[in-house]
């Protein structure tokens, strides 16, 4: 392959899955409508034709059973990739994820690992209301034993999966539903990414915008607007929600001395709260202004477009928060 190749986030995810299936016969996919239907977000479209029903396993609507089956298969040497349609549905498998996947290595005194990958669609913006739109990845980021990833760019959509499969621990990958259609080019020189570090996506010296998932897209848009006002925002992509790469966050805040955290999850008890507290603990004396958060409004996600837009963090909210820190009234 020579020059940059144009692709979509969805296609990047699919290529990651194809690679995994081609590279390791112990890898297989399991989930609802991932086979004949092609995946509810069409990520797995065509894979059943290429790899067959044994490795692209359509499951009944039994989240707990097939997630638990993924854990069991991982315990005995397989490398399953389980797909859950949306994070709201993952609650039906919460017992298996929290009580088994996250505990068995420790509870067994290190006799077993659970090398399982679970892909989960998350987030709002598609007008599908309160049972398909929430951002509960912050809950999972609370759980010791899990690694939580949030690919926000094409490169991560393409390559995080391989790194997740190489991890001997359970890894949850949260794909934001508003990202599947984004298009762009993949650098042919990049063939792998890490799943340990946050990454600065745009440099700036005036304020740090810390975001993940679709929040990154919005933070980057906000940074453009701020630049036009003469405010240089640094945008940090969390990428890994657990374990948090605190040093990268602290380094950015130490440079800019101001920080806005963007999180689609509800503010109370949020991942944004955790990040803010870590910065308060480790970079308090570097701050020139209070920490700020732009989070999802504390409501079940409404259907009506104007209400949903109002419930989600928007670039204008991020701009206002950042401006308020850099140029207080």
């Amino acid at each position, binding site marked *: 392959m020579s020059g940059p190749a144009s692709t979509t986030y969805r296609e990047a995810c699919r290529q990651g899955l194809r690679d995994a299936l081609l590279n390791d016969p112990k890898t297989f996919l399991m989930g609802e409508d991932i086979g004949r239907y092609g995946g509810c977000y069409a990520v797995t479209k065509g894979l059943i034709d290429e790899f067959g029903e044994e490795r692209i396993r359509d499951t009944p609507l039994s989240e707990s059973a097939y997630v638990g089956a993924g854990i069991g298969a991982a315990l005995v040497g397989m490398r399953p990739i389980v797909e859950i349609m949306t994070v709201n549905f993952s609650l039906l498998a919460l017992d298996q994820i929290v009580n088994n996947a996250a505990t068995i290595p420790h509870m*067994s005194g290190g006799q077993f690992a659970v090398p399982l990958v679970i892909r989960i669609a998350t987030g709002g913006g598609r007008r599908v209301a309160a049972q398909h739109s929430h951002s509960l990845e912050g809950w999972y980021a609370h759980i010791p034993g899990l690694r939580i990833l949030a690919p926000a760019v094409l490169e991560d959509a393409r390559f995080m999966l391989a790194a997740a499969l190489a991890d001997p621990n359970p890894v949850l990958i949260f794909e934001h539903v508003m990202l599947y259609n984004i298009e762009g080019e993949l650098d042919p020189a990049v063939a792998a990414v890490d799943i340990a570090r946050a990454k600065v996506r745009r440099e700036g010296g005036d304020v740090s915008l810390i975001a993940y998932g679709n929040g990154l897209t919005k933070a980057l848009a906000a940074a453009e607007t701020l630049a036009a006002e003469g405010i240089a925002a640094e945008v940090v992509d969390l990428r890994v929600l657990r374990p948090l790469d605190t040093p990268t966050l602290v380094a950015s805040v130490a440079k800019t001395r101001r920080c806005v955290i963007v999180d689609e999850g509800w503010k109370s008890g949020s991942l944004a709260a955790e990040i803010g507290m870590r910065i308060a603990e480790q970079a308090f004396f570097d701050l020139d202004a209070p920490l700020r958060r732009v989070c999802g409004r504390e409501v079940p996600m409404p259907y009506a477009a104007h209400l949903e837009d109002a419930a989600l963090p928007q670039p204008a909210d991020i701009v206002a928060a950042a401006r308020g820190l850099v140029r207080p009234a």
Partner: protein
Amino acid sequence: MSARVHLDHDHVRHLLRQMIRIRHFESKCVELYQAQKILGFLHLYDGEEAVSVGVMEALGADDAVIATYREHGQAIARGIGMDVLMAEMLGKQEGCCRGRGGSMHIFDKAARFYGGNAIVGGGLPLAVGVALGDKMQGRNTVTACFFGDGAVDEGEFHESMNLAALWRLPVLFVCENNLYAMGMALERAEAQTDIVAKAAGYRMPGVAIDGMDVVAVERAARDAVEQIRAGGGPQFLECRTYRFRAHSMFDAQLYRAKDEIEAWRKKGPIVRFEGWLLTNGLIREEEVRRIEAEADSEIDGAVAFAEAGTLEPVEELERFVTMAEVPA
């Protein structure tokens, strides 16, 4: 067709010995609990020994086992050493889970023993996955999954039964029906109290057997395992049994009558099998006493091992929360 159980002297002696080892091990656990050397929850298997002993006879070394928080019997019958079990109970790093699991979370990789699961019903999806993983890797194994009558209330039971039957996975589902889910009587919890009928709802072959009769359990388990190994998909056993003691050490047993317990005790798996063997001249009284003495001596050794065990340094607390690699 029925798999034969060879009731020769060695075998009947072995069955009796296994049940006595479990019963006496747990009696010692009660003493250690009262002495506050075992802490937390302690769920005793007293009365149900025939189930795990009978089922394990049908399994080979390559097969897998998943059990519940009441799993001392399964662990011992599966061949996990009493020394590492007792050390686990005492929270020592010489325990099978280095003191991280305790009574409810026994794991043993060599025995293919995947817990010790204290979420009612939580082990069933795992069993489906272990069977799936084994099958996909071409292993001709059976995964035995033990659970109680309470688990059949759970959605995970129904989801797992369906998935195992749908994919024809090599799982032996063993329901230890002791009539009470903690304090909830079966007939107060189930619209359909015939548990085998639930298996039939998933077109899974199943039988209900007398779980107080170790030979009946072994015979049924051998039949079922034979069918599973022949590629017939999952099988279901309902073993009707009874828990002689409290649910855990904190249970005042307000939900059942003392004479009910006494009536069941008379039908107990050890007293009954031992009596039958003696009556039929298959074992001698002094041989039984010797089995008991040997079990007690083994248990004393396990307690000594556990007492002499060491505490894992607190610095190791977070070890194994995440793994650096998949253990070989």
